[in-house]
């Protein structure tokens, strides 16, 4: 559609400046008090108002649902997670990410200029993260106290097999190692068949699981020596419950390796507001943001983060700036939408959640299990000097921690 909306996306019935005062919001302007929203219906209503801020923009970028952010950040956005609403919010959050995958299936996704632009900005570092994970697995396989046989690897949201291809490359150096490896590939999208095709030349033992990771964890009862994922965990808002599921599927000597993007950008409304402002969003839309969050977004969110974490936020700003520059003046007609809100955490938060879930992230514990492995000084392994933005984080199931 020429006004930038597309089918399925609600077109604002009147210009943003004419919209009514928000029917629901976490703070009361009359008293100045903040009351976090906890009823599911109210959260949905509030979230819809938030999403409308960018509805109909001519560029294919939207804020997306608040529920896409990390659960850890929900209170900053005015939402309270309770025992009563947790399951429903978790389901709804997962559905929003499923929507991304569905859009990916539509139309010209693979040849899509937007897809290419996104890939161009993220693939170089993702490929490097894949290589780091692959080298760690190789070292651990070779340096384990007891021989790992079979080597059972679970690649969650494997996409077209980038990570498994790196692992196969690393393991192929040693005769016979690949023969005892089993690659379990989980992916919901049609990329799974591409992964199988990309890995064919290695002659791997592949077990494809064409389903979501949630479906996999709900139905599969096998254990794995290595659970790996690349650029996926930031799509899992409920990190604690997700890590618990992963933990339950790991063997006693199991190691979890996550290559992912990290940023505190979506952890506080003030940072997202700043991004929208830099995007050149109209005043009316920004005013709407103000009305929804009031003092919540005015309170500084960035002061709780250290330098690498702040650098991570800056990197994400740069990502969006490059995205705008890449889109230029061209009118985008594709099906895909890019959403700002994601469940990014900082590395520190991720490691704390891993520890809470029963893993150990301490390098000395890991060294004791793999005494002959050449490992780095510490985890995470950062891809960029002084920045948290892209890193490989490693955790081991505590059962064998010495």
């Amino acid at each position, binding site marked *: 559609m020429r006004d930038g909306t597309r089918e399925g996306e609600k077109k604002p019935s009147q210009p943003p400046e004419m919209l009514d005062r928000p029917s629901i919001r976490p703070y009361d302007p009359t008293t100045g008090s903040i009351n976090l929203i906890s009823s599911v219906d109210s959260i949905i209503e509030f979230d819809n108002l938030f999403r409308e801020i960018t509805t109909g923009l001519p560029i294919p970028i939207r804020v997306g649902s608040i529920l896409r952010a990390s659960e850890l950040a929900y209170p900053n956005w005015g939402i309270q997670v309770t025992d009563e609403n947790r399951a429903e919010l978790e389901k709804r959050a997962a559905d929003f990410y499923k929507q991304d995958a569905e859009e990916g299936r539509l139309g010209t996704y693979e040849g899509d200029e937007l897809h290419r632009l996104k890939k161009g900005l993220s693939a170089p570092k993702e490929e490097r993260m894949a290589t780091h994970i692959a080298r*760690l697995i190789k*070292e651990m396989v070779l340096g384990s106290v007891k021989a790992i046989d079979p080597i059972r690897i679970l690649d969650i949201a494997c996409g077209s097999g*980038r990570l498994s*291809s*790196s692992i196969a490359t690393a393991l192929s150096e040693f005769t016979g190692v690949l023969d005892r490896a089993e690659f379990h590939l989980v992916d919901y999208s049609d990329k799974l068949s591409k992964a199988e095709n990309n890995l*064919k*030349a290695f002659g791997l033992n592949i077990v494809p699981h064409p389903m979501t990771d949630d479906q996999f964890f709900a139905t599969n009862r096998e254990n794995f020596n290595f659970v790996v994922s690349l650029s996926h965990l930031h799509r899992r808002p409920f990190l604690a419950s997700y890590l618990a599921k992963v933990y339950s599927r790991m063997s006693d000597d199991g190691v979890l390796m996550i290559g992912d993007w990290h940023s505190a950008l979506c952890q506080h409304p003030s940072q997202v507001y700043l991004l929208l402002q830099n995007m050149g969003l109209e005043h009316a839309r920004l005013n709407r943001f103000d009305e929804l969050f009031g003092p919540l977004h005015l309170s500084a969110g960035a002061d709780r983060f250290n330098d690498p974490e702040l650098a991570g936020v800056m990197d994400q700003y740069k990502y969006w700036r490059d995205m705008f520059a890449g889109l230029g003046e061209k009118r985008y007609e594709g099906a895909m939408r890019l959403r700002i809100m994601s469940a990014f955490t900082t590395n520190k938060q991720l490691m704390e959640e891993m520890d809470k879930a029963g893993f150990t992230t301490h390098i000395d514990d890991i060294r004791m299990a793999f005494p002959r492995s050449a490992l780095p*000084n510490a985890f995470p392994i*950062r891809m960029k000097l002084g920045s948290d933005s892209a890193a490989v984080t490693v955790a081991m199931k505590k059962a064998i921690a010495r």
Partner: protein
Amino acid sequence: MNTQEWPRGERMRLAERIEELQKIDAFLDEMCEGLAMTPGSIFRIAGQYLPNWGIAVNRKNESWIWERSRSAYYAEWEGGTGDANTAIEKAIEKAGLEYGNKDMNDVLADTVVRLLHDMSKTIQDKTRDFAIIDVGAGTGDTTLAILDAMQSSEVTEALASKCHFYILEPSFKRLGNVFERLEEHPLKPRKTLISSNLEEYLRTVRRESFNMVVSNAVFHHMGFLSHLRLLREGLAKNGVMVIGDWHTTVWQHPAYVAPILRKLGASEMNVRKFESFFNVRKGDLETVESGLTPKQLEANRQMLAYVTALADELRSVGAKSKLKFLEAHESLENRLGKLRAAGFETDMDELKANYSGFLNMKSNQRHLYHKSDIACVVAVAKTKK
């Protein structure tokens, strides 16, 4: 008069004079005009295969052929791949080679770091720096892969401070990208960026300047030996070279090309003309393939899957690209032979015995795929004499 024995035993006179060579390229251009992708100049292929295409290389024509080969590649690079990018991506994916270049960089990086680690253990190498030149660096993937390999272990991390990387890449724009990427690497590498092409730069550089040459997926654009000789001169005593590259023999004989022309939509009459011009007969392909190893056959199958997929893609979108499909791919054996001829030691026993970096290495060749020659990393050293 130069002749070549054809697979079926006939002897044919080979074209030698410049005018004859020009006519061959003109024939290819004319015959393939309008196709979604064209072969490009015949002189893009590896020099040792030219006789199979009816061409003799001699002292009188070699510099002309060399220059023609070089300019044919430059013309393509300058023209860029433009709208063909999507088709290339899809074709690579269909051929199952999506991560080939990246994975080959990783293998190359592991080899480099292992060599540096062992080289730096010897008494004379303990305190000195290593000058490493990345030839045809593109956007810096190879150097970054080396740095990442160093970063992956506390044992090798310290190597980074001993290395100075010389990044050689003709495109200034790409060098800018390399600079940005290296600046932000956690190991803070020392670096010098050089915007030049390989041969021009090496002719100006002091002899024995580098301890190591690294290069990935570049040499299959260089059909002749000259760059290898120059690289040897640029290497210091005991210097080593690690090359990752694509190895196939699909352009060794015109019999491979006729089916591709059909795929690209050439008329049957034109394909026949092609076969007649290059003296391709029924059974030639089988004869040529009977001399190949299983790994070479698999490599050719993978390469043809890529080219065929690319032809399909380009035809399906009706695109006419500036892509040229002939390249200087050669068999791994041929490459090793060229390296030896240029003054590199390729024998693993000799390397182990005479070069500290190879002491703990099992093999100086590493195939990315066990059953195929298509992607391989080779480490060699400058011969003592």
